[in-house]
């Protein structure tokens, strides 16, 4: 197979991973640091920040809120994005360019402005600010990402497959379900992942459009005023990280066990 081979590739990947995880390492050290301010060399080690953090009901509820908002908005953004991507890449209709411009425009608008604009809108419509309004805003800002990822994927697929299916008598919904969706499923997962990440750590919209129960970034930002509460917050960040990695490793391991045949097949025709 005609591809570039660089022994440096794996090294490059490893170097990047190292760079990405270095701050995480520092955060970890901060969370076990015996003291409020952090500097090298460290003064002492403690686990009481973790214990404090788990007892901190507000912190935990902020975490739950973030997860809720992120799941809802990312699912919505992926669904809306997939539908629009399919329509845009498979059909001709008036207003395509306009819609695309409008769909991508959230990327051009600083979240700050969108936040204020939506605040005005919701107040004018007399809708209370809440996690729901935050989720709505997050869907808007995630949509361009999901759309772009899915469109890039769909553009490459030969539409003849779908046309063939329909010539053979399949209805469009059937074609959608059995041919198009499975083919773009990996891209949908990628899009969902991006949307989730965008929402989970998002601060500006979550701050403007919420009332009462803060999401995690807003909570963290609020805690920045209290130097003595800060390490707990860092402890949580580290914990979420560790949880993600653990689950991820489990998923990886299960995949290895569960799909030997599939793996062999792919390696076979992938050279």
């Amino acid at each position, binding site marked *: 197979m005609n591809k570039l081979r660089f022994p440096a590739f794996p090294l490059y990947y490893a170097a990047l991973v190292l760079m990405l995880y270095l701050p995480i390492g520092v955060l970890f050290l901060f969370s076990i640091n015996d*003291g409020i301010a952090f500097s090298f060399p460290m003064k002492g080690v403690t686990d009481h920040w973790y214990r404090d953090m788990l007892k901190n009901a507000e912190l*935990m509820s902020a975490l*739950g809120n973030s997860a*809720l908002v992120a799941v809802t908005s990312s699912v919505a953004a992926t669904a809306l994005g997939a539908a629009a991507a399919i329509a845009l890449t498979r059909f001709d209709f008036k207003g395509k360019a306009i819609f695309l411009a409008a769909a991508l425009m959230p990327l051009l608008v600083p979240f700050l402005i969108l936040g204020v604009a939506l*605040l005005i809108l919701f*107040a004018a419509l007399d809708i209370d600010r809440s996690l729901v309004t935050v989720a709505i805003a997050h869907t808007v800002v995630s949509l361009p990402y999901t759309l772009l990822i899915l469109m890039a994927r769909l553009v490459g697929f030969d539409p003849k497959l779908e046309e063939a299916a329909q010539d053979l008598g399949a209805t469009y919904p059937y074609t959608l379900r059995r041919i198009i969706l499975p083919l773009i499923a990996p891209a949908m997962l990628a899009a969902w992942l991006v949307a989730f990440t965008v929402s989970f750590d998002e601060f500006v919209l979550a701050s403007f459009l919420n009332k*009462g129960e803060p999401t995690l970034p807003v909570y963290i930002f609020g805690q920045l005023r209290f*130097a003595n509460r800060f390490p707990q917050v860092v402890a949580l960040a580290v914990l979420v990280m560790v949880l993600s990695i653990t689950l991820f490793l489990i998923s990886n391991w299960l995949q290895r066990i569960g799909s030997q045949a*599939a793996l062999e097949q792919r390696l076979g025709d992938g050279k």
Partner: protein
Amino acid sequence: MRTSKLRLKAGLLLLLLALIVALPGCAGATPAATEEATAAPTEEAAPKVCPGDGSEGKLTVLEWAYYEVLDMSADFCDAHPNVDVTFNFGASDEDIFAKTQAGSGEDVMHFYTPFLKFYVDEGLIQPLDTTKLTHWGEVPKKFQDLCTLDGKVYCVPWDWGYTSVLYRTDKIPEGVDSWAALTDEKYDGHVSMWDSGPGAVSIGSYIKGYDEANLTDDQLADIKQLWIDQRPLNAFYWTSEPELVEGFTTGDVWLAYAWNGAYYSLLSSGVPVAYANPKEGRNSWVGQYAISAKSENVDLALAFLDGKIAEKTATNLLTQYAYGHVNPAAYGAVTDESLIEALSLDDPTELDRTNFTVPITFDDFQKFVGMWAEVKAAP
């Protein structure tokens, strides 16, 4: 094959999420040893503070994150345990003002000097009947005056602290005696100013000797130039105390405009710092609680404000959160040496030498903010 792998990954990602959402639930099951555990199960998950059944009435407060703990409303909840007090949060004074203006509808708001006038000018808060505040007499006059405009009392002062020049004694052994040190080239790259236009104008007027409450346009332009010239000496404009504390600890920052909270943190962790007594005088900021003009729970709100200035709440604020409180009755309870030092609790004349932040009009506020933006944008 591909689909089943995909389903597996998707399933596991969902599991991860379920775990994240469930984690708060696990934490809730652990017996919470501190009074910080608040939420009794209600449909609305907004933090509730008084541990009663909510039958005595309802009150909403627009607050800063973490001020909703029971400690900070101890006296009120003792007297009225069955009031349902819920908190909504703002991220800053500007945010709280914006939310109030937008009609977020809380009964009580907590903001800091110099915002008082905005609320009064826009008719957002109502004058208080101080005869209904049993502890009003315990509050020193200097603090009472800060809440008084045109002879009417509009708020109850609560938390306070100093602002002065904080500096590392090992890097600046000669000490600092003036606000002008912030503009001294000797400290190139090691100064940190607070990121605030009104704050910069206050300090600028101290340095230049102008009357902060009556600045002319020329004087404002002078102050602007002062800060533009200062910018290259400045490492960063700090927006939160941990940021500043970190800067001092790592040695990036040698001197800064700082609140006493940072001073206290650094003292407690052993970093060699001192809090200047500049010849122009320190500055002080005060937090204030006010009642919305549209509140339907005025009596409860007044009781809430009254509880804020009572002794138990005052003691909690001082000893547990290291913030100053206006009621001197609580000062005796403070044993932490660093805190006494930081707030000059043993020197009552310090307050007399202090310049309290003056209430300004909204127009002036916007002018000052614009000035600061121009300082940052200047080439």
